[in-house]
């Protein structure tokens, strides 16, 4: 069964277009993350699904029912907000049961539902408190409790972790993911944090400038980005996007990038459109595709090896990253764990050229196939 289906949806404020031609189809029980930089239209899209913003064009259906003309309360959804949006004058129990009360659920049933949700989220001891007496993490739980208690067809999360500190954010991330596994509900989750998207989603939809740039599983988005925007947005540290000159010869394609005063020509095993011969393209390589240590089980010709000068090293504990000057940019590469290499050292680096992506320098469209 479909969980959520959006067909050709668009949003206009007067004559200003903020969303266009949005098509999304997800199954029941999926965890869809809408991710993008601020102002990309992801929150607007969420509000359109919720019924808090009018749908200017297209059609949205939840669990098979078209909801375009339904009030938020009739759409069988529940929503968690970035600011938690707890009713300040009501207790935690009052906050959680407010929606049920409006739906005239009998008191005994209501209390049972509140108790069940409080148990699930471990907030039973807080039920008589006011929101102002709670910590950020507790408020977050109450906000989720308010959504869970309604047992809706679709959960909407609007950047729910943005107001938490870094440690709590990681904890709640895990918790939301567990909650999703446990309840099996369809979730639409908005965030600007690509790590949240990667870790929680079963399906990611990357938005920018009111358009869907790409949708797919976290794996597809990460390993097979559709364009330079997605490639640069997803991943931390981000993909290195370097200027390279493409040349076709008898042996195949070669991509030349400058390294300080020298230049490196990487033999590119995949095919590019002929029209890009002798033109500048954008070469995208993730830090883990430029490595100091030759992977043990890799084929002998999978990597192109050359010597580079390190500009900087960044030990992060588990990994050590290095910065090298490639095409005038500080490209990030991955050094051996515990590497002793230092600024100015010459290191031998292995480029996994077969995994690299090539984009059009202007449009950002993916060129290799």
């Amino acid at each position, binding site marked *: 069964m479909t969980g959520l289906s959006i067909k050709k949806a668009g949003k206009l404020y007067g004559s200003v277009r903020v969303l266009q031609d949005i098509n999304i189809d997800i199954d029941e029980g999926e965890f869809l993350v809408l991710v993008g930089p601020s102002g990309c239209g992801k929150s607007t899209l969420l*509000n359109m699904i*919720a019924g*808090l913003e009018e749908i200017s064009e297209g059609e949205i259906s939840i669990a098979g029912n078209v909801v375009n003309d339904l009030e*938020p*309360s009739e759409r069988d959804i529940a929503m968690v907000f970035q*600011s938690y*949006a707890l009713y300040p004058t009501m207790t935690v129990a009052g906050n959680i049961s*407010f*929606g049920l009360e409006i739906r005239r659920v009998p008191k005994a049933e209501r209390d049972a539902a509140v108790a069940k949700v409080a148990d699930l989220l471990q907030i039973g001891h807080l039920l008589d408190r006011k929101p102002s007496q709670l910590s950020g993490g507790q408020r977050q739980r109450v906000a989720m409790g*308010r959504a869970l208690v309604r047992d809706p067809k679709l959960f909407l999360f609007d950047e729910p972790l943005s107001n938490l500190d870094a440690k709590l954010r990681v904890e709640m991330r895990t918790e939301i993911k567990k909650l999703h596994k446990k309840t099996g509900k369809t979730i639409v989750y908005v965030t600007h944090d690509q790590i949240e998207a990667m870790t929680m989603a079963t399906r990611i939809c990357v938005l920018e400038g009111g358009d869907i740039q790409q949708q797919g599983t976290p794996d597809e988005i990460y390993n097979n980005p559709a364009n330079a925007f997605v490639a640069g947005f997803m991943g931390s540290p981000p993909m290195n996007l370097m200027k390279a000159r493409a040349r076709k010869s008898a042996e195949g394609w070669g991509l030349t990038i400058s390294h300080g005063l020298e230049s490196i020509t990487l033999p590119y095993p995949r095919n590019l459109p002929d029209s890009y011969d002798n033109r500048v393209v954008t070469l995208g390589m993730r830090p883990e595709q430029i490595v100091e240590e030759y992977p043990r089980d890799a084929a002998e010709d999978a990597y192109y090896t050359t010597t580079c000068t390190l500009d900087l090293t960044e030990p992060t504990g588990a990994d050590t990253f290095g910065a090298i000057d490639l095409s005038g940019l500080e490209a990030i590469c991955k050094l051996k764990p515990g590497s002793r290499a230092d600024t100015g050292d010459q290191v031998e680096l292995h480029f996994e050229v077969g995994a690299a992506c090539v984009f059009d320098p202007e449009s950002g469209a993916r060129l290799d196939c």
Partner: protein
Amino acid sequence: MTRKKKTFSAALPKIVLYTSLLLFAFLFLMPMYVMLVNSVKPLEEIQSGGMMFLPQTWTFEPWFKAWSTAQIGVEPTGLRPYFWNSILMVVPAVTVSTLLGAVNGYVLTQWVFRGHKIIFLMMLGAVFIPHQIILIPMARMLGFFGLAGTIPGLVVVHTLYGIGFTTLFFRNYYVAFPSDLMKAAKVDGAGLFRIFFWIMLPASTPIIIVTVIWQFTNIWNDFLFGVSFADYDSFPMTVALNNLVNSSTGVKEYNVHFAGAFIAAVPTLLIYIFAGRYFVRGLMGGSVKG
């Protein structure tokens, strides 16, 4: 020696500050002192020139007289019936205008409709209309509805005149109300009035207190509307006080006048003492959102 001089120059701003504060406090409290001491003094003591001194013989007779037997116009009723007139006027007028202001502010900020800015500007305009301008049209209107010279008539006038202020107060308070709360309530299935009575109003205590103090003081202290639109049996306190002072039965009973003036000021004083701190807090609220 030099050390002492230094501490003196450092303390100088404080000395200046406190001296001037004391001076102003003295200036403001002086009339109140004169009113109080003379209201508990026999008339002869005042007439013999002892206006500034504490009474030699204490008496509360002037208070009783002002309250229940003094000559107001032609009737020796004291201020008592007019005090109740004022209460009967102030309570409904404050309640209705505050409630309407709250609903207006709520709709103008949370359920915006096309033209809401114009509507608000027009309501804001009511704040700037001088009282004198509306006297004659309002008299015609009250006459037309048969409310001329009655307390309900005064309630209507004060309510209408207050809506501009109360709407302004509530709009400015609600405009800073987090929009996510409204969205959450809508998703929960609450409608316009449910959200208002269950979520907005309970969270509006500071601004309700500000509005009530403002409306209460203004309506209680109003003289012009009272004298223009009321009649002998519906005059509010302020008009009666004026009549008390101006009814000459031979001697001017200053002690009774002072007591009467004090009685007229008591309700607003009480309101300010009990809710004044909210007034300052409420007016400051929103400027520094914590």
